[in-house]
């Protein structure tokens, strides 16, 4: 690196300062008593269709996604596009299930998925395991947001190594921690407006300007395929190309399905959904949020544009930042990098809030102190949001990035295991709490076992008839079989406070 790009850095700092101010101002937005957890941690459930659209869009399509998806496309091609079927599958699912979940949680005052699980099955061990799974899977996800941020800060010309290299990241993250502590979910909701608009602007600019400079989309795909063919000639073991190789089809399909099942089990996704003002806002979003999937697909194409632009990087995750540096004037580079960095702040904030709500409500309350007042709950959650973020920062600074990447991969495999407890519970109470707990534990163990490889953790294995399937999906099938068989023999649930009417829209 030859020094800092001053213009880009100035633009970057300007936008970063802007959202910092918003983060603090947000405390007074749609004013509520932030000493209550549903106000701090769910924005008082007052976010209408538009705010929810920006918040969920900012929350689900993270900075890590903007870096990682085109990185996979750059490295191996069409396989990285699994993110598109994945994000298509999500919305019919949200449309069906999430209004039901919102209705039940609103009616009964639940703040988290694990709250709902306890209400449905009356089993605090199941509640605790659901909560613990969510928190452990979220931690590395927050850490990876930091990786996304660090990539663009380094691309601005800041040093890669040593404590000085981590300083800008540390400062940015501490600022985030302070305003999340103060403003709760209102902060990322407000910042999401800025972030999402910036992302739309840079993506539209990128997919028009870059192909124009590189000779059109035809030339881009041709040069990507040429690079892949050359790579295949030297290393035929890793399938690559602008179409799926036969060996990639099952992993592609099962990874898309499994990831779609896992996404809305994460505490941060549920936090985004439950903070909506009602089932109508959620349905509107199931129809309108795919706009972000289109953006994601266009971002994925940046991986090919990097080939056509002749970008050669050792770490594929540097491909997009380097492409922008090569293609855009400095001020616009600053703008796009700021969009990516701010794109890390929104999900990192919501993730830490989701994990903090879950810790407070579903681990501390049932197992440590059953009689917490609302202000004690809120104080503990605020504190936990700090602990979670500082934990993520320490992981990134002191451990190799690969550690967070491996944990993130395992996190998806684990997260999908709470799918039966939450989603089946929306439709039937036939399953027994103890049976779901046993299924969950089997799923976690099997998923982890399948993902273990002698050289590295792997997402796909040939456990069933030699077909390569996503481990999360294989494990959740075992999970459901165990839960179903045990539900025949175990005694009835202790309590079930939910009725079918709780799941239906309240009539005005």
């Amino acid at each position, binding site marked *: 690196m030859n020094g800092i790009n001053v213009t880009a850095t100035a633009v970057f700092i300007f936008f970063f300062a802007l959202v910092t101010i918003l983060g603090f101002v947000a405390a007074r937005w749609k004013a509520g008593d932030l000493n209550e957890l549903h106000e701090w941690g769910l924005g008082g459930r007052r976010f209408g269709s538009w705010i929810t659209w920006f918040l969920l869009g900012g929350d689900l399509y993270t900075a890590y996604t903007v870096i990682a998806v085109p990185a996979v496309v750059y490295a191996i091609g069409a396989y990285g596009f699994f993110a598109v079927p994945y994000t*298509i599958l999500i919305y019919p699912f949200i*449309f069906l299930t999430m209004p039901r979940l919102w209705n039940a949680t609103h009616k009964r005052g639940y703040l988290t998925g694990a709250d709902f699980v306890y209400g449905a099955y009356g089993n605090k061990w199941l509640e605790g395991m659901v909560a613990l799974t969510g928190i452990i899977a979220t931690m590395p996800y927050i850490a990876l947001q930091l990786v996304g941020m660090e990539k663009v800060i380094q691309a601005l010309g800041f040093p890669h190594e040593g404590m000085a290299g981590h300083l800008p990241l540390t400062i940015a993250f501490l600022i985030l921690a302070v305003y999340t502590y103060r403003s709760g979910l209102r902060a990322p909701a407000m910042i999401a407006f800025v972030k999402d608009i910036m992302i739309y602007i840079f993506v539209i600019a990128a997919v028009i300007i870059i192909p124009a400079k590189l000779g059109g989309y035809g030339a881009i795909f041709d040069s990507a395929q040429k690079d892949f063919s050359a790579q295949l000639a030297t290393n035929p073991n890793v399938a690559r190309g602008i179409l799926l190789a036969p060996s990639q*089809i099952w992993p592609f399909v099962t990874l898309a399905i499994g990831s779609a099942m896992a996404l809305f089990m994460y505490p941060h996704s549920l936090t985004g959904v439950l903070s909506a003002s009602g089932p109508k806002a959620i349905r509107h979003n199931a129809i309108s949020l795919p706009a972000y999937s289109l953006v994601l697909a266009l971002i994925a194409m940046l991986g090919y544009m990097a080939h056509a632009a002749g970008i050669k990087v050792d770490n594929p995750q540097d491909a997009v930042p380097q492409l922008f540096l090569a293609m855009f004037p400095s001020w616009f580079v600053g703008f796009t990098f700021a969009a990516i960095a701010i794109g890390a702040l929104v999900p990192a904030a919501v993730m830490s809030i989701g994990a903090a709500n879950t810790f407070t409500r579903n681990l501390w309350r049932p197992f440590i102190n059953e009689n917490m007042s609302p202000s004690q709950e809120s104080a503990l959650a605020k504190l936990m949001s700090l602990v979670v973020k500082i934990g993520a920062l320490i992981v990134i600074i002191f451990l190799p990035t690969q550690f967070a990447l491996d944990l993130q991969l395992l996190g998806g495999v684990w997260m999908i295991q709470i799918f039966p407890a939450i989603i089946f519970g929306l439709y039937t109470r036939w399953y027994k709490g103890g049976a779901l707990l046993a299924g969950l534990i089997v799923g976690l163990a099997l998923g982890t076992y399948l993902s273990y490889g002698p050289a590295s953790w792997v997402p796909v294995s040939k456990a069933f008839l030699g077909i390569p399937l996503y481990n999360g999906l294989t494990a959740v099938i075992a999970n459901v079989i165990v839960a179903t068989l045990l539900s025949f023999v175990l005694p009835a649930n202790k309590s079930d406070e939910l009725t079918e009417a709780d799941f239906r829209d309240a009539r005005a």
Partner: protein
Amino acid sequence: MRYILLLIPCVASVATWLYNISEPMLFGIPFFYWFLMLLIPVSSIFIWLAARTGGDEL
């Protein structure tokens, strides 16, 4: 009907045997890519139709 409408884009999105081909191209983009991108707004329409036929409040 509601469930069938929701299922159609889901099945199409993972029907790789249908779209894992490069022809016909559109503006130099292989079929694989423009099919998936076109499917995104199409899936929105199907969800909207499902809401309509299912009587969900919008």
